[in-house]
């Protein structure tokens, strides 16, 4: 056995640790809870110089999967990690990876699939991958996450198939446990050996075409080859496990059980619940109940024989499904087990219980109840555990009266089209007067103290009189306002996932106009406003640009706090260059984020949007007036795009009370210049002139950028300053020349 040491870490941490020891060539990723930490830990280790993996933050999981696929065709080792809707977004790429036979390893920290949006753990995501042609390991402890990550790559490279290492989100991904890891990385590297790709797009001496255009009769043969590879995997996996046992002293089998031999009643569970049920088995055995539990460590290739050997003597098997295949009277674990038993002529009773959805805990007492129910005759074949009907006869009053159009039209900010100049002119928008605008959001939302999001949304909506309908993409703004069973919204609101909010609102806007046209909906105006973070403008950029080009009559408002704050501040494309984040750590080998912040207003302006403007809370009157102008454009001309720089005291590392000054400094130093582009013509609304400070002044105000003020980062800062000055000069040139 090789020398090992104890780590007290979570499943995510040891997955990252295994990847570091393997020293993959490329990791393409996009952060999503609960798998995000894997990339975070690897980035930290990268900054500290502990590995050489090239870490590529994609703008969404679909691209992350693409990066991984492309990298894997280049003959090296590739790694990814995702969860839930990230996995769903990447799903289309999974059969490409397996069908063209390029091995890689992807960790899936299992989480509930939206909607409604849920960030907690169940198995509704992983079961979608059963038909993708990937080998699927399921680790039920952090230790197994580490061990399986090492075995997975060896299996993948032997049979030329990609492998998923799945485990319970939170229960395994976040729970810290005592884990043994190899003291030397070399032990891991020797175990997996050298990778020799069969085909490589970088092999110039043997040029190959990867990804043929193939129909019948050939696809049958291609898929049969994939099937054969799975059959081979079924043989290779036990061999790799056995070899690994010699190295680690830890034994893995494709399926395993506890007290199954003489058990009359068996539970079949996947993941961390297996261990909870073992505790229940011990207790019930003391009472003389013949019970046991079994699980599978591999979902594909399905270890039918190993599972049958464990459960063939049972009279009743209760399958706990942590997801449902709605309408099939059981989740996938149930259906696969039933098919396996039928094939072998088994006659035992199989019950299905959907449990633990959305991260609901599985208690030992519940495992005991499940066991005991199996000794009864008349129990339903299928049911949901943990459901409840709710309070009978519940009557609840509304807290507020709906905001009427009249309430929301005090006439404090007006925008009129001036015939002679051909421009919109805004009047009013004064701070005192506009306090008369009703708040479209209620207090009591869960945003952090001092958060900029509610401040900016409030300023925006102050300038928009009349009816509004809101759409928020996933992000802090959405999570803190709509935690069920409450909502902060006092006007109609829709959420959709952040790769698709703009398209969703396009559909809603067009439904409004179409129903009005058909006379089904009263005449009148509604301003449709989409609110997104800068993260949503990364993954949702395609959808937003499509909406811009189609020019729907809506406002797209982006609050830019420069990071994926809802998941714990990973870098976004709008994070300032040099800033530290959970995926751009500062260390001896890394200075923070390595590329410039994205200039979304200019991208939108290039898309020909009728009205583009930047706003900041430090200039509140300008903000409110631009909101009114955006409303006028959205009513008559099409899409208006507004972007605010939005403070995040938690992750910027500054004081909540000082945020307005921090924003003001960003405006003054022209990191975030205030301007508008009206029908293609640029106007600068605020020119700091001689007062324009250097970017260092702003960087010094925030913990995330403070390190840049040290002289060792002088070149990085000079580089950033040049880019900011260049963008500012371009803006001034555009403002001076309407043709630009």
């Amino acid at each position, binding site marked *: 056995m090789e020398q090992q040491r104890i780590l007290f870490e979570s499943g995510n941490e040891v997955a990252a640790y295994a990847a570091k020891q393997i020293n993959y060539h490329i990791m393409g990723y996009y952060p999503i809870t609960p798998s995000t930490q894997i990339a975070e830990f690897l980035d930290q280790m990268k900054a500290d110089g502990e590995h050489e993996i090239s870490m590529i933050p994609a703008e969404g999981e679909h691209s992350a999967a693409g990066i991984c696929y492309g990298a894997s065709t280049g003959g090296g080792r590739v790694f990814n990690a995702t969860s839930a809707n990230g996995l769903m977004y990447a799903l289309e790429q999974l059969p490409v990876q397996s069908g063209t036979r390029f091995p890689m390893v992807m960790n899936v920290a299992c989480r509930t699939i939206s909607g409604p949006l849920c960030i907690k753990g169940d198995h509704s995501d992983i079961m979608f991958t059963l038909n993708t042609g990937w080998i699927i390991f399921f680790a039920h402890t952090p230790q197994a996450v580490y061990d399986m990550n090492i075995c997975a790559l060896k299996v993948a490279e032997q049979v030329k198939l990609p492998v998923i290492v799945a485990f319970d989100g939170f229960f395994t991904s976040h729970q810290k446990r005592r884990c043994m890891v190899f003291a030397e990385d070399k032990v891991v590297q020797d175990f997996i050996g050298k990778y020799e790709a069969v085909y490589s797009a970088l092999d110039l001496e043997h040029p190959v075409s990867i990804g043929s255009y193939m129909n019948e009769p050939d696809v049958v043969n291609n898929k049969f080859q994939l099937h054969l590879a799975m059959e081979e995997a079924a043989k290779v996996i036990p061999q790799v496990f056995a070899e690994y046992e010699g190295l680690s002293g830890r034994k893995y089998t494709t399926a395993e059980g506890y007290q199954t031999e003489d058990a009359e009643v068996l539970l079949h569970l996947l993941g961390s619940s297996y261990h909870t049920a073992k505790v229940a088995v011990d207790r019930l055995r003391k009472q003389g109940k013949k019970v046991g539990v079994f699980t599978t460590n591999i979902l594909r290739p399905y270890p039918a024989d190993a599972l049958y050997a464990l459960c063939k003597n049972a009279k009743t098997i209760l399958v706990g499904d942590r997801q449902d295949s709605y309408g099939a009277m059981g989740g996938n674990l149930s259906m696969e087990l039933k098919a396996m038993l039928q094939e072998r002529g088994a006659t035992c009773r199989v019950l299905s219980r959907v449990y633990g959805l959305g991260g609901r805990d599985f208690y*030992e007492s519940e495992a005991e109840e499940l066991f005991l129910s199996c000794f009864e005759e008349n129990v339903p074949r299928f049911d949901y555990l943990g459901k409840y*009907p*709710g309070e009978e006869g519940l009557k609840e009053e*509304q*807290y507020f009266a709906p905001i009427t159009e009249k309430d929301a039209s005090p006439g404090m900010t007006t925008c009129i089209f001036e015939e002679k100049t051909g421009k919109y002119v805004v009047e009013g928008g004064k701070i005192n007067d506009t306090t008369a605008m009703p708040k479209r959001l209620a207090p009591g939302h869960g945003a952090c103290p001092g*958060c900029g999001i509610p401040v900016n949304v409030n300023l925006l909506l102050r300038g928009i009189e009349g009816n509004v309908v809101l759409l928020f993409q996933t992000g802090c703004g959405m999570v803190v306002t709509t935690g069920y069973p409450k909502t902060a919204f006092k006007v109609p609101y829709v959420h959709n996932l952040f790769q698709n909010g703009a398209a969703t609102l396009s559909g809603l806007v067009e439904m409004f106009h179409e129903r009005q046209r058909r006379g089904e909906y009263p005449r009148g105006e509604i301003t449709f406003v989409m609110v997104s973070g800068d993260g949503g403008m990364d993954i949702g950029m395609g959808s937003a640009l499509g909406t811009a080009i189609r020019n729907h009559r809506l406002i797209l408002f982006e609050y830019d706090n420069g990071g994926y704050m809802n998941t714990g501040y990973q870098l976004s494309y709008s994070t300032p260059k040099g800033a530290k984040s959970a995926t751009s750590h500062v260390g001896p080998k890394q200075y923070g984020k390595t590329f410039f912040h994205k200039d979304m207003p200019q991208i939108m302006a290039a898309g020909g949007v009728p009205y583009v403007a930047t706003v900041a809370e430090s200039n*509140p009157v300008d903000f409110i007036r631009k909101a009114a102008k955006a409303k006028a454009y959205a009513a008559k001309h099409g899409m208006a795009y507004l972007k605010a720089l939005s403070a995040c005291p938690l992750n910027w590392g500054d004081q909540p009370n000082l945020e307005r000054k921090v924003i003001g400094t960003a405006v003054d130093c022209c990191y975030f210049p205030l301007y508008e582009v009206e029908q293609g013509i640029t106007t600068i609304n605020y020119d700091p002139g001689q007062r324009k400070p250097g970017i260092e002044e702003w960087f010094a105000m925030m913990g995330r950028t403070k390190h840049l003020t040290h002289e060792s980062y002088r070149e990085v800062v000079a580089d950033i300053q040049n880019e900011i000055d260049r963008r500012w000069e371009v803006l001034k040139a555009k403002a001076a020349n309407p043709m630009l």
Partner: protein
Amino acid sequence: MEKALTLPVTNENGYYEIRLESIGGLGANLCGKMLGELGAVYLGLNAASFSSYGSEKRGSPVKSYIRWAKAEDEIGINSPVETPHILGLFHEALAGKLPVTAGVTKDTKIVINTDASPDEVRKRLKLCGGEVFCVDALKIAMESKTRVNMVMLGAIAKAGGFIPMEAVEQLVQDTIGKKYPHLIQENLEGLRRGYSENQMAFFAEDGTYERVEYKEANNKWGYANAPIGGTNPRFGSTVSSDLSASRQGYIPLFIQDRCINCGLCDTACPDFVFQFQRGESNGKSIMRNMGLDYHHCKGCLRCVEVCPTNALVTGKEREHPNPQWAVRNQDLIAEHLEFEEVGANSWVTSKSHFTEKRMDGGVV
């Protein structure tokens, strides 16, 4: 590793269990991780630790759970700690309507961050019994320029009664000292003062207060009455959340006769605290600032910073339990409002560098 420690008591599964109840930003998550690591790496035990999860928001309820067992015993249970041997309460305000004391018996050691005495704490928390350790962690943290979690860690080590302080000090050295060597003295001082500066009293289960059983929280809406699809028709219902527990000891105080009704406070407040109504000033009809809805004030003090006339100033919450100019949200039509002390979303999804960052400096 030292010789394995013997646990003085364990539950029927063979675990020694600790539960920490806190709000985001006080470092309970890190404290929980450290207690787990203490068991697994420094005390020769098997250990597990995890926190309640969700999106990471400062100022919302957080729970952390720790299990210790004999090195050779498996820890099979992944659900929350229901009947803790030690209960750590990081913030006094939590002891309001949240069932933080669930599972407490006379055998529980309750470590609470408070300036009150054990007798007062028992009354306030309606504790059925137990050994109550009171430590003024906020004050000690401020004085020693460390954070509440270090002081609480010291007090928890003391309450346990079997946890060697040398091991805890070594853990702190290794966890904080390696990355933040300049902060190690402050942290060790906070830890040691937490260990030594606490008041303890034992209360038998004398029937004064009932036990609080641990329960999974259910909502009023279930499958029979919840609107389909998760749609929420109760608009603006977050108004029933009282987020005052998010405050870190300070509130804005309103000095109305200095107010010029400029309205800047209302542009800076993330929590819609300011209540403006139409009224008269110098014969003119204007919007006037009628006061603050303190139920929803999270104490960020943005308003104090933007106020041009110092009509809003910072006050210590303890000194102003009933601030003047406190009004309720003026748009409410519901006559009775039962506030729930909750955060819409709490929890921690990501260790990342913020946990570490919060260890930076002495900001409590």
